[in-house]
């Protein structure tokens, strides 16, 4: 195998590759393109919200209808924005790209356990994402029943919903292959001496994430198959008896339950929240330990909190469904579990904060994003508490407050962590350095405009503005006092889009820059920095597979010459 490596053509080396690093980069590029696309959809929606019934500039020609955005298409953009950002953007970037590239490197493995499955996983994701996007070209447009696809609306919706479901089933298959691969890799391929309590936190987060994906996604696959049956074969799993649509009684057999979908959907979608946030914790923990030059506070507490978080995430799903008329007993159960699950999140956040204490902090770009993550995720998490309590949730449900809450978790939360990860590991992946000035501009403008977009949502939501109004609340009595905020949010969103240009320029000029040849520019301790070249060797990662003797964050060890002691340094 290794002898014919150098003879590989462009296609076998970069397209049909089974090397985990190439697949990681494939995941990374594809998901970044989807993130940009999903963000673009939102920028169009924000124009409609700020200036309803005026033609959308620049991209208006694509929309037809004189550049106006009709309500059906607004719904479609909303549904696809959510689906694309979560399933095609953030998860593939956090788990597919970072997990693939760095888990084997950090545990001293020469590749993933099943390289061919790994490639199959990427291509299934790619095909699923393309199939889902074909919805935009179908009559009636892409899926338009929200990213949650609640029936009966989604069952009677246009063709786009069918390709959404088929795409979804493929994405679930892809994540199944990916998660089995990560789990087996971490369990089986840890190098000599890499015991569980010596694993970098990033590996732990990927490991728990993989378990969540493995066990939480299949019920949604079941639900997707059931909804496909409803739409294509005409069953009534989610269709109640005597449903009347636009004045006509539906002819299907009936007897089904829309609530069944909600249960199956949220059984996935709540663990999915932790799929989104756990890799972010991992990246931020790595960067904070590295840039404070001291060990993480409470390594074991972090690990146990994350395992507990992963376990609890399976029994909180119905807190998304308080207003479905569930009984108070069930409501009380899910309120209790929801309050309990906030404890490990607080433990994690506290450990990250305490890690800053007494450190000699280096304020480079990755560290700024990691530091930005902490308060932003804090806002997102704390604003979730009222939503976890049924009494408060009844008022806030389906308002902009909810949108503000989960966007704080995912956008300035997870996405900041992902940016941090990109800036942190870029030198490892390419052997080149990113531009610090552009990186800092990217960070400060992003931080400012992220808050500009999402903070007003809390105000609108508390006033009672519903989340699914295509006109931004023009005709909605509750919105009258707070409707001026629409323009604030929209301008922030567009400026946030402009701020990403710093990132794109930075990536492009850095890629064309000179190789520095430094293998460990951040003076880090983990194996991917200390024992590989930058970029790591194409086949086998390491010249000599390292052995591990120490914990992952031995920074500033008294008596050592340098302020970092590699994991692979003999005791």
């Amino acid at each position, binding site marked *: *195998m*290794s002898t014919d490596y150098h003879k590989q053509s462009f296609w076998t080396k970069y397209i049909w590759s089974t090397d985990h690093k190439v697949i990681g980069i494939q995941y990374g590029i594809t998901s970044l393109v989807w993130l940009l696309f999903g963000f673009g959809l939102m920028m169009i929606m924000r124009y409609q919200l700020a200036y309803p019934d005026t033609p959308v500039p620049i991209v208006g020609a694509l929309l037809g209808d004189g550049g106006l955005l009709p309500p059906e298409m607004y719904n479609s953009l909303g549904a696809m924005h959510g689906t694309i950002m979560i399933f095609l953007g953030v998860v593939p970037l956090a788990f597919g790209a970072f997990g693939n590239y760095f888990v084997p490197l950090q545990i001293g*493995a*020469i*590749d993933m*356990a*099943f*390289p061919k499955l790994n490639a199959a996983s990427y291509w299934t994701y790619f095909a699923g994402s393309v199939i889902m996007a074909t919805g935009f070209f179908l009559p009636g447009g892409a899926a338009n029943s929200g990213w949650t696809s609640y029936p009966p609306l989604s069952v009677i919706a246009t063709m786009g919903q069918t390709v959404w479901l088929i795409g979804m089933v493929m994405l679930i298959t892809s994540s*199944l292959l990916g*998660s*089995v*691969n990560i*789990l*087996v890799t971490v*369990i*089986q*391929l840890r190098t000599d001496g890499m015991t569980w309590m010596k694993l970098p936190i990033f590996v732990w987060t990927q490991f728990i994430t993989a378990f969540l994906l*493995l*066990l*939480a*996604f*299949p*019920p*949604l*696959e*079941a*639900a997707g*198959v*059931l909804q496909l*049956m409803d739409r294509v*074969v*005409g*069953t*009534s*799993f989610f269709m109640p008896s005597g449903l009347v649509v636009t004045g006509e009684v539906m002819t*299907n*057999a009936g*007897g*089904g*339950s829309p*609530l*069944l979908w909600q*249960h*199956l959907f949220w*059984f996935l979608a709540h663990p999915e929240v932790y799929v989104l946030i756990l890799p972010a914790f991992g990246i931020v923990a790595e960067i904070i330990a590295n840039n404070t030059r001291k060990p993480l506070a409470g390594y074991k507490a972090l690990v146990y909190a994350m395992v507990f978080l992963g376990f609890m995430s399976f029994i909180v799903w119905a807190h998304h469904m308080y207003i479905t008329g569930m009984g108070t007993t069930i409501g009380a159960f899910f309120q209790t579990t929801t309050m309990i699950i906030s404890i490990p999140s607080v433990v994690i956040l506290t450990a990250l904060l305490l890690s800053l204490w007494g450190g000699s902090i280096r304020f480079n770009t990755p560290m700024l994003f990691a530091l930005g993550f902490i308060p932003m995720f804090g806002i997102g998490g704390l604003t979730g508490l009222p939503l976890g309590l049924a009494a408060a949730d009844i008022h806030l449900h389906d308002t902009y407050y909810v949108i503000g809450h989960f966007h704080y978790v995912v956008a300035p939360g997870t996405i900041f962590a992902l940016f941090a990860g990109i800036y942190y590991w870029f030198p490892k992946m390419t052997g080149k350095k990113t531009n610090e000035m552009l990186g800092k501009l990217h960070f400060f403008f992003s931080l400012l405009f992220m808050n500009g977009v999402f903070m007003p949502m809390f105000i609108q939501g508390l006033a009672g503005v519903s989340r699914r109004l295509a006109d931004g609340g023009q005709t909605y009595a509750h919105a009258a006092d707070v409707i001026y905020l629409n323009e604030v949010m929209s301008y922030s969103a567009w400026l946030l889009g402009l701020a990403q240009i710093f990132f794109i320029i930075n990536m492009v000029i850095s890629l064309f820059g000179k190789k520095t040849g430094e293998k460990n520019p951040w003076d880090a301790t983990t194996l991917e920095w200390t024992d590989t070249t930058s970029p790591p060797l194409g*086949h*086998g990662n390491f010249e000599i*597979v390292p052995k591990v003797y120490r914990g992952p964050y031995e920074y500033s060890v008294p008596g050592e010459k340098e302020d970092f002691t590699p994991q692979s340094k003999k005791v």
Partner: protein
Amino acid sequence: MDIPYTVKNRPDTGLYNGKLGIWLFLASEVMLFGGLFSAYIFLRTGVDQWPTGSEYLDIPLATLNTLFLITSSVTMVMSWASLKLNDFKKFKLYSGVTLFLALAFLVVKYFEYSHKFHVGYLPSTNNFLGIYFTMTGLHVLHIIGGIIVIFYFWMPGAKMWEVDPERFTNRIEIVGLYWHFVDLVWIFIFPVLYLL
């Protein structure tokens, strides 16, 4: 460099990669079928009228199919055990029988399905038939997947026995684990849909 533990067990976990992989895959499959069984319970408890299986389904045929699958699980184990005992001919025999039984299951299923379509029992008729067709259909897809893999190792893939017998034996063990799982799903489907 080759990936470690593809054939030999890792000492501290006592597993080779493929075996752990298939167990994790099966855990995920449990959640898939678990989701469908939960849906069944949810739908059934949500309505006043729910037919018993015998009103629509053919219990004797399903009993026959249950026997086919259980026997095929036994022959599957025998084929793996034969390899462990270095008896390649017996492996061929038992794998062949497993395949035959799996195909017999599909033939019976074909007659069951076509009879139902013939008398107008469609998935859209009611939710009992809907969930019946969905669950058994998904199960049949798993059977077909199994048949393809068993056939591959029975015929073209069996060449590996000469070059790397240990790895080949492992592969049969992995297929066996999957096949027992598919069998087990049927053991749940049979009472839940046909008998209750």
